[in-house]
């Protein structure tokens, strides 16, 4: 016992990590692959998924996972790089889904047109509706963004508009299942690396400044609300994109797209994957969504298993897989006497 208190864990960057930080990364295959491997594993792993898991059932799981991953990415971006905790995943999906549905059934646009249009226009609608609570700080944004999906779902139900409880049916699907899967996987990868790049640009720095302290941003002559609105637009457009894809995959759009699963699961995935890493939440979804599918045969008990996994992660690995994994990859640890 006494011995234990006298020791501490020392963490030192691996030599190869330090070398690859500089220009030396270009000088050997080993260093290059050290740098590129994690990215390549993710990219090729995602691209190989439809081939490794064939069949109608897994095809659905993969596409749903990617849609959840988009939502988790948008949650992580807003929460850890702009400082807005959003519970609006369900709202984004719902708005995107209904928009794509209306564009497709009423105006006869094909999926390759409705998906981007629903993302852009849906992002605008979500941002406009969330605009009133943007100047406020604290939990207000979370509360309002949680209220909207509940509100809109009940509105559709009560007024019997947009197909009422039956939803909008007869939406075109994607032309074939390969296209459907690779379309969504491609979009996810593109947005993942895009957002990662965005947060490291100067405008990304401003957004992080909004999170750290918005008063200093104001004192620098920048409109905080404008930047928040910009970030919310990016995040909600990602969510709407997921929703539009969902509508075309199920060839149906209904109230269940406003289900709170779309708000809550991305947060759980962020906890498991590691907040602030952007890749982490995507990995979290890759773990959580299939698990929740596998647990489906246990009926309502799956919520229990699900909750246990979450609690275990929060208690034992609250930093998340990605932060833990990156540390192991970049540093070695040893016990030193002090």
């Amino acid at each position, binding site marked *: 016992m006494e011995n234990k208190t006298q020791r501490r864990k020392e963490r030192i960057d691996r030599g190869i990590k330090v070398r690859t930080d500089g220009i030396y990364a270009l000088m050997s295959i080993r260093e290059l692959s050290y740098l590129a491997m994690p990215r390549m594993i993710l990219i090729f792993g995602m691209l190989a998924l439809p081939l490794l898991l064939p069949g109608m059932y897994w095809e659905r799981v993969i596409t749903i996972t990617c849609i959840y991953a988009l939502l988790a990415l948008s949650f992580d971006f807003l929460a850890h790089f702009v400082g807005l905790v959003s519970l609006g995943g369900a709202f984004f999906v719902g708005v995107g889904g209904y928009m794509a549905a209306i564009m497709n059934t009423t105006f006869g646009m094909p999926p390759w047109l409705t998906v981007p249009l629903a993302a852009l226009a849906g992002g605008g609608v979500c941002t406009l509706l969330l605009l009133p609570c943007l100047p406020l700080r604290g939990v207000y944004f979370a509360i309002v963004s949680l209220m909207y999906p509940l509100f809109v779902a009940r509105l559709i139900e009560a007024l019997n508009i947009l197909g009422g409880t039956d939803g909008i049916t007869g939406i075109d699907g994607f032309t074939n299942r390969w296209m459907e899967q690779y379309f969504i996987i491609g979009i996810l990868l593109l947005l993942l690396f895009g957002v990662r790049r965005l947060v490291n640009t100067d405008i990304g720095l401003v957004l992080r400044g909004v999170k750290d302290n918005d008063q200093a941003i104001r*004192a*620098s002559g920048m409109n905080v609300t404008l930047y928040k609105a910009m970030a919310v637009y990016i995040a909600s457009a990602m969510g709407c994109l997921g929703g539009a894809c969902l509508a075309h995959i199920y060839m149906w759009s209904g109230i269940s797209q406003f289900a709170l699963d779309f708000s809550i699961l991305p947060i759980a995935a962020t906890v498991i994957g590691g907040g602030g890493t952007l890749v982490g939440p995507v990995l979290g979804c890759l773990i959580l969504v299939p698990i929740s599918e596998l647990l489906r045969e246990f009926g309502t008990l799956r919520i229990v298993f699900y909750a246990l996994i979450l609690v275990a992660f929060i208690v034992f690995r609250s930093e998340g897989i990605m932060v833990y994994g990156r540390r192991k990859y970049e540093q070695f640890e040893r016990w030193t006497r002090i």
Partner: protein
Amino acid sequence: MKSDMKQDAGKEPILRVEKVSKAFGGIQALNGVSFDVHSGEILGIIGPNGSGKTTIVNCITGFIKKTSGRVFFQGRDISDKPPHKIADMGITRTFQIMRPYYSLPAYKNLVIPLFSPRAKRTGGWRGGGRLGDRNTVSIDILEEIGFERDSYVPYKTASTLPTGYLKRLELARCLALKPEIIICDEVFSGLSMSEIASMVPLIERLQMEGITLIMIEHRLRELFRVANRIMVLNFGEKLTEGSSEEVMADERVKEAYFGSQKVEEVMKHA
């Protein structure tokens, strides 16, 4: 330098504060405070704790809404403008409780204000039209303000910097906007004597570059070294205004600071 200021007295003031009042609930934090600031001068604002010094800064820069009164900058009414508009016009401020972006390195702290519309318009620190790489410009500004360029200091995370550097970082954030006026809310407080000694020439240099400064201070000796004019606040009202000698000779100022006792008596107990 003080004689130069006399000549400017007849000119239009760069900043005019007219009967500004602010009440927080039943507490009258400011009660009809009026003063002028002339271009290129250093105005010191002093007063005991709770006399409304920081409140007047917040009122001028728009961070809190005035109950009544008007503020004019270069003849234009800025009373009802939001803080970012006022900063965009060229009135910048430091915060008494320093507000760096703690998770970012010092030089990245400056990239943020350099991204603002005003910095884009004014072309960064060195003039020269289009703003170059913001990282380079920010390190230039940091060097001007006393961060050693070739050391690790500009690259250290803001949360690991000592107070002296954080105060400089606050000033640097203002300078990135190429301001007309900098309002310094207690830049000397919390600094060691040697840190203040290196800060004073910096303030003087800013004045020589044509920047108007308003300095809120508790460190009177250092303030009197740099300020051209002193204004004294007490209980939200302007007590007096004048040169440092005039102000310190004023009985009311002594009373505000030390109470109605004789100064000698207080000093005896101190």
